[in-house]
């Protein structure tokens, strides 16, 4: 392939998480020209994408303004037409549309592309057809706590065949931005360990209270070599002032080691600034991904709707403090208010955060204590990408592991991957369930549907969901077919378990 297009109309965080895909495309097709379409607001950001050859931006804001300002549709048409006409003339060997939306599906139809991967408008124009891998992605979004793959890996693995990942986002900081960033916090220049703190989040359901942040910083500054910079955009300056109110009474030697840079950085300078910090403490994912992309270690606060396995920072050695509650994660529907008064965010205490940061900074072991309602998860790299594992006494989620294995059959239908996780305690009853499901499926595939209503098989709902999504909305002529994928996923689990001698049955298991 000589020329490929990636359509990513989502926000900053998703855009940065697209970089592993860009990198993979460059690896798969050396010398190929990589184009990216994003919203115009991300123009400055994508300038730092090293694998990007050409950027096309669409200014949706101006379309919105044209709609507001006039009753005449032809004017709006002209505004949009002027923006996309350059893209229209382009010819691509492949287009990768990453957004589950008709908007980006329509955008990906503007240039000529020999193949479209990801999402594509159906022939009847009322559905979005999807690649098998994205049918799996959608099924997993419905069962989000399972989160077998990071979003960046979902994007990355859309391009096949499989290439071993390096587990890194990519972002290139310009020299000038780096220098500018350095000049911003000169007063902290003598300090070895700079910790960046991002107070604000885009969604209020993910906001950790400012008093907790200030208490955390106060305790962090007990170590004499630590300095703190506050990051954020102009609109978040109010939070910075609130934070400063708490610091007013602090002793000067602590107060002097805080530098408030909220609203003082462009996106490029922010990237430079983050790259000079040892750690970013954040609840927000946008800045978090940017920091991960420049190689800064993250200590992330995940609660509310956030799930580490899914949107956790991409890269090795990041730590996520994941609060859990009986009701978590929150539904994605932001209009509903929390019935539990957002109690989950209070499970994360300042002392715990300080301990985790010190663990990352000084390799101090986390003191053994009651991690009630909290998991400390650390990222690591395997052959499929980044995954999160608990470093405290919590056990890894078996179901999530299952789905990592089953999903991987879509990437490489052969038995190429071996999984060390498979020595988890699988019960014979689970194996029997798989066997029954496969038996039913082979006899009368439609009966599988009824198993969804049976609690006993609840663990397998997502895989059945995937099967139906792929069947109904799968792009034609893509491999593996839903049937192949379903059987391959099931049998890979059966094989792994058999290999680990959990399964006592001596009869070999046949799929075909």
């Amino acid at each position: 392939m000589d020329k490929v297009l990636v359509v990513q109309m989502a926000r900053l965080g998703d855009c940065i998480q697209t970089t592993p895909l860009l990198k993979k495309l460059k690896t798969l097709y050396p010398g190929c020209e990589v184009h990216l379409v994003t919203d115009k607001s991300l123009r400055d950001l994508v300038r730092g994408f090293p694998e990007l050859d050409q950027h096309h931006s669409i200014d949706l804001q101006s379309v919105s303004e044209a709609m507001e300002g006039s009753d005449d549709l032809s004017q709006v048409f002209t505004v949009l037409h002027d923006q996309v006409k350059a893209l229209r003339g382009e010819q691509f060997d492949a287009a990768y549309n990453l957004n589950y939306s008709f908007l980006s599906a329509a955008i990906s139809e503007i240039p000529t592309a020999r193949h479209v991967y990801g999402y594509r408008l159906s022939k009847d124009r009322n559905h979005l057809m999807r690649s098998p891998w994205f049918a799996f992605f959608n099924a997993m979004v419905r069962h989000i706590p399972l989160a077998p793959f990071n979003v960046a890996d979902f994007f990355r693995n859309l391009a096949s065949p499989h290439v071993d990942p390096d587990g890194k986002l990519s972002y290139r900081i310009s020299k000038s931005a780096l220098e500018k960033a350095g000049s911003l916090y000169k007063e902290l220049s003598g300090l070895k360990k700079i910790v960046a703190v991002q107070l604000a989040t885009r969604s209020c359901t993910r906001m950790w209270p400012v008093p907790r942040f200030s208490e955390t910083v106060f305790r962090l500054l007990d170590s004499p070599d630590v300095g703190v910079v506050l990051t954020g955009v102009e609109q978040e300056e109010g939070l910075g002032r609130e934070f400063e109110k708490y610091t007013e009474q602090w002793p000067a030697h602590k107060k002097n080691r805080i530098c408030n840079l909220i609203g003082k950085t462009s996106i490029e300078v922010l990237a430079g600034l983050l790259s000079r910090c040892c750690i970013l403490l954040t609840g927000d994912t946008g800045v978090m991904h940017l920091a991960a992309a420049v190689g800064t270690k993250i200590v992330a606060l995940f609660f509310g709707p956030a799930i580490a396995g899914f949107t956790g920072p991409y890269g090795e050695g990041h730590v996520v403090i994941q609060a859990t509650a009986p009701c978590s994660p929150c539904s994605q529907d932001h209009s509903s208010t929390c019935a539990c008064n957002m109690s989950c965010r209070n499970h994360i205490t300042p002392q715990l955060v300080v301990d985790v940061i010190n663990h990352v900074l000084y390799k101090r072991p986390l003191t053994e204590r009651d991690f009630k309602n909290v998991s400390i998860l650390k990222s690591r790299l395997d052959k499929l990408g980044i995954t999160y594992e608990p470093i405290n006494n919590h056990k890894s989620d078996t179901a999530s592991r299952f789905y990592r294995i089953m999903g991987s059959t879509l990437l490489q239908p052969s038995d190429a991957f071996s999984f060390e996780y498979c020595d988890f305690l699988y019960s014979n009853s689970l194996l029997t369930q798989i066997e029954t499901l496969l038996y039913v499926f082979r006899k009368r595939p439609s009966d599988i549907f009824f198993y969804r209503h049976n609690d006993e098989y609840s663990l397998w709902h997502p895989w059945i969901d995937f099967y139906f999504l792929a069947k109904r909305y799968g792009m034609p002529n893509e491999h593996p077919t839903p049937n192949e994928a379903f059987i391959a996923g099931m049998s890979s689990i059966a094989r792994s378990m058999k290999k680990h001698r959990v399964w006592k049955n001596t009869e070999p298991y046949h799929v075909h």
Partner: protein
Amino acid sequence: MCTEKLLFSENIERLRRRDSTLAERILKVQVPEEYAVLRARTGDPVLKIKNKTIHSIYNPKEQAARFVDHHLKKEPLHDNSVTVVGFGFGYHVEELLRRNVRVRVIEPDEVAFRCALENRDLKKVIDACEIRIGSEFIYEKEQGAVVWYYMPEIDDTVKNSRSDSLYKKHSLPSIPISKSLKILVISPIYGGSLPISYYCDNALKRLGHQSSLWDASMFEKPFRMVLDLDIDHQNKKVLCDLFQHLISEMIVATCAERKPDMVFCLAQAPLSIHALERLREVGIINAFWFVEDFRFMRYWEMYAPAYDFYFTIQKGEFLKQLERVGARACAYLPVAADPDIHRPLVLTADERSRYGSDLSFLGAGYYNRQCMFKGLIDFDLKIWGTEWDRKSILWPHVQDKGRRISTEEAVKIFNASKININLHSSDHHDGVTPDGDFINPRTFEIASCAAFQLVDRRADLEYFFDIGREIVCFSSLEELREKAAYYLRHPDGRSAVASAGRKRILADHTYEHRMRDMCKIVLEQKPEMLSRKHSRSLAIQNIDDFCRKHPETRHLIEEVTTRGLCPDLDTIAATIRSRSKELEYPEAIFMIMKEYQKLVKEHLR
């Protein structure tokens, strides 16, 4: 140019003294390209609309004198006064004034009137005449006044009334999108006003409104099942109310989503008073067209006050009674014809023998018809329609055992019969209802087919047709027999009247005319409807211009407009969604716009 400006300012000044609102209105009128002014050989200005000159291009004054002579000969003036419909450049009106006739002028076309003020010195005319500008005044003629029509632009174009393309030429100009309304037409479940709801919907679309039909006739079967249940009358009524309530709720739900500017209901539309109140709460205007005889159907007493607008086919007493029961706004709106449906047809020999006869009647067997038609059985008479008495001597004349006749068949019957009898129904008179005060749809429909009819004399019929030239009336069985015999002997006379009748329908009595008047009346009282921007969607304002700029969109836009829909973003997006092939470039652009608009709306919510 200078004289033109001077003339106009003098004329308008004079007009302002007499009627300042009219003067203000005329000042705002823009003259489109198809209106041109020529010079006659005599040097007098002559108006030309599209390709038709309104006055003689040799000598307009002489022609005006001929016009007046001709009409005076035909119809002498009682009290030396006349109403002239059609003003043009007013030569004929000046001629009448010269002969000391008192003239009342009705000019349906305000653009033509503006042109007249720009090109002729009309100060005398303005001082001497009562002037009404606008098509709505065509019905506002004084009782018993003599009316002359001066509408050469229509007479001249109608050379061959048997041409189907004729109608297209007479289609009213489409209103600009900025003035288009989003209208939901509600049909009844069944009954005579059901087809009228279809005609209204079509007419509104042709006028450029964003009309859609809520067709309640899909519930006819289940509703009849309720009516046919073998249960107590009282219980049946409860069920019928519940049924109507459900349909009402469905309409309200549709309105909640589509947010029309207006809901236009035809007689017997199943909308409850409660539903009307809810529609009003959300700012949707509702109007009702009571296309029935108020003396027979009494439900108006309860429903009329619930509607914002109540349109009737009867004037005088009914309007007073409506006022008494507390109706908000009422107006007279007679029925009409849809010339696309009721049109001249070329029939096969089979059809002619099946549907044709010397005399025919199509309609239900009301008492007065049963009585009167007994006196016609010596003619070759065919009777079509339901509710005829099997024991009557008329029964052998009743076709197909009195089955229901579809609209398509009705058009064939009208076309095939030499004489169509049209007797307005009555339950208690023996024959012609004296002073019957409404005109039934059949009158317009037969005329619109360019078919010949003998209709019983109605109170206001002369305001709609030039009696004797465009339509022929009777007042008694004797007169009916006499005229039937005469016209059977004179086929030329029949066809002259028939084609003049169709011309008149095209000029004045289509549903487009009625819907235009209806909207005008509604907008006059509720001008805020147009300013409520939120209910209207983003639309292409100048289609030609847009298609010229982006030729690749033409195909898509034409698909929308030929279906009579407004090219707004919602409609275009829906059209794109209804197609099924790979997305083309312009379609992608519209889809992006629509999807982004949705996202923004969701975000705001």
